[in-house]
């Protein structure tokens, strides 16, 4: 029997329909504006699809859900009619429910050793869970929030059910998914920025390679990242004078690991001739470095679930920095599993003219295996 955690943020997504950028702290305002709960319907769609998949795939494994009382999970599980599932309430939230309740429930999940946490919410909920469980338990979200930039959501509730069903059958790999959310400090100053907070673990479809005529072998996410990193390191060996600017996130981090140098998961590092020349640099330091070097390459990866390569979690890479580097000197890297989740690449540099220059390209090259690339559409 599989023991999974299940937590619903009952107010997630309520701000969206009434034009707010989130629901945290502004619930009263949202309700005044006429917002209604969206989570129950999303959870219903998820559970319905999961039930169908368990039946049609004849998945023998049963699920024991550990959840919260009332509207934070129990109500939804109680109305679902799937025979192979049972649930147990491990936390009773206070009235009204709050982020603290999500965290308390997650502490229980940690204690009880669940192997997966399924949640319904948005970036805020993902961040609350990640702050408690870190990289100890894989998490997967039923998208229901206003903001869903983090790489831990299914594309829709049915897709989340597909992921949970495949996880239950033991077919999935576990890889890193970025946790992104609104930068509250900046928000209080009147700016709206999405910041990268860290990486959680999340189930991924592994990459398969053919081993014989009718057999394939799964290649783990880490092995794929290593392969991609090898390609980048070979590029560095070919161009020893070139300044390599390495963006944030774990995919690009694998390049630094391959080089055996320190790196900043959440920041931007600079490398020349395979040696770290500056760690976690800001915009002005980057501009300074760009003044010193003629040849430059920027290595970035889509961050989070929506395919953003610029404008989410890497604000150091300002419009001026990008213009100085030049779009043609950008190398985008991504494991295939992540590309499958983000069929479009997006940019939001804060400079419309620059964004337009990306859009004019229509397609960008993405390295997704050792020295292997494909063209991926760039969307708005």
């Amino acid at each position: 029997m599989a023991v999974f955690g299940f937590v619903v943020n009952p107010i997630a997504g309520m701000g969206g329909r009434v034009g707010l950028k989130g629901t945290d702290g502004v619930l009263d305002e949202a309700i005044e504006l006429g917002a209604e709960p969206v989570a129950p319907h999303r959870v219903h769609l998820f559970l319905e699809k999961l039930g169908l998949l368990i039946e049609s795939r004849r998945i023998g494994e049963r699920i024991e859900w550990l959840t919260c009382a009332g509207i934070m999970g129990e109500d939804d599980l109680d109305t679902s009619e799937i025979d192979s599932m049972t649930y147990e309430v491990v936390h009773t939230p206070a009235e009204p429910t709050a982020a603290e309740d999500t965290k308390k429930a997650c502490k229980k999940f940690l204690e009880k050793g669940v192997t997966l946490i399924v949640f319904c919410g948005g970036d805020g909920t993902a961040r609350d869970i990640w702050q408690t469980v870190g990289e100890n338990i894989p998490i997967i979200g039923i998208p229901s929030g206003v903001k869903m930039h983090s790489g831990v959501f299914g594309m829709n509730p049915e897709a989340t059910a597909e992921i949970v069903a495949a996880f239950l059958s033991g077919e999935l790999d576990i890889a890193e998914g970025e946790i992104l959310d609104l930068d509250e400090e900046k928000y209080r100053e009147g700016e709206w920025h999405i910041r990268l907070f860290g990486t959680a673990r999340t189930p991924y479809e592994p990459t398969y390679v053919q081993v014989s005529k009718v057999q394939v072998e799964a290649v783990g996410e880490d092995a794929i990242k290593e392969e991609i990193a090898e390609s980048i390191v070979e590029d560095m060996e070919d161009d020893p004078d070139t300044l390599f600017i390495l963006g944030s996130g774990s995919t690009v981090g694998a390049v630094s690991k391959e080089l055996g140098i320190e790196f900043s998961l959440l920041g931007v590092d600079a490398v020349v001739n395979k040696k770290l020349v500056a760690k976690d640099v800001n915009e002005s330091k980057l501009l300074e470095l760009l003044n010193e070097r003629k040849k430059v390459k920027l290595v970035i990866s889509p961050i989070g679930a929506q395919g953003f390569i610029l404008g989410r979690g890497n604000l150091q890479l300002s419009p001026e920095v990008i213009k100085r580097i030049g779009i043609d000197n950008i190398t985008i890297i991504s494991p295939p599993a992540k590309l499958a989740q983000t069929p479009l690449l997006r940019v939001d540099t804060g400079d419309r003219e620059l964004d337009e220059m990306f859009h004019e390209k229509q397609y960008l090259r993405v390295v997704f295996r050792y020295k292997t690339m494909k063209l991926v559409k760039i969307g708005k």
Partner: protein
Amino acid sequence: MRDPSGFMRTEYEDLVEKGFDWKLRVLEGPSAPRCKVDGKDVIMLCSNNYLNLSNHPRLKEAAKRAIDTHGAGSGSVRPIAGNLDLHIEAEKAVARFKGTESALIYQTGFAANAGLIPQLAGKGDIIISDQLNHGSIIDGVRLTKADRAIFAHRDMGELEKVLADADKKYEKILVVTDGVFSMDGDIQHMGEIQKLADEVGAMTFVDDAHGEGVIGPDGRGIGAHFGIAGKIDVEMGTFSKAYGVVGGLVAGSQDLVNYGLNKSRTWLLSGSHPPAVAAAQLEAIKVLEEEPEHVKNLWDNTKYFKNELISMGYNCGNSETPITPVIVGESHKAKALSDRTFELGVFALPIVFPMVARDAARIRTMMNAGLTREDLDEALGAFEKAGKELEII
């Protein structure tokens, strides 16, 4: 103290536990339309012996004769002392049949891909592949220092974009693809690929393993099928499928052959085919040139079988060739259908996730020219009975 070879057992046991190990079935007697597999009499629907040439009296006779005239083995690699007159004759026959200037026979199809592809592109070049290319092509590509790009399966719009992108940055460009794709039985748009490649001066390489002896007039393969025989830079193929023997081949210009034999390490370093193999290869080509009925029977059988399956309510996908997938959905259904049809005397293997998408598990059938209408009706009866029992149709 380290255990020098313990990993073999542990890894093997791991495969067994996951059910990923190969359970080898034993064919008692020849690979024939009706044969004996693990002691059971079955109708064979999963061999590559499309034209049943492996049992053709002329091929068997030619092989026996060659043993009498040339012995059992060739004695060496071809570049040193193992280059027999029979090898040369077989190569001339291939070039004649395929309408190319020249041809070179490799020890296997895998040896052709793994040996030649790495010699066609290197650093500063790019190899562009269809995303569903066969594993032997992928291995050949892996051995190069070239950059690689892929295009979505049979998506010519995407190939055009990839070519335009590559045109600016690389010296040599090689487009490599399967001709007939072995999971779905669909055919690559080779005419269009050749046109797009010509526009930017890219080289073309097609692995026609499942197309040779099958598509094109008299089974002359994909070049003839699209009316571009001799234009494709490398038409690679195999003698192990429709031709009914074993061995790989490439057909193209004399330059290709001169270069290929001097550069391909698989060709240079493997012993050459025994006389019986070379003579049977030569005879297979002659049979195809002189007896068009085999290819016609294959297609007649394919059309009949496919139409009957579809009218029963089965989904046969986008197949355009004698590879007919019977798509049933979830993996357990495909396995159950395969088990049940085997009990009913039909041998065809299930192909399940992750080889194909989770909802596209299937039994892959491969037609044979030697099956009679009665054989086909018996096989169809098994599919109908099993499909109804399992509520697939």
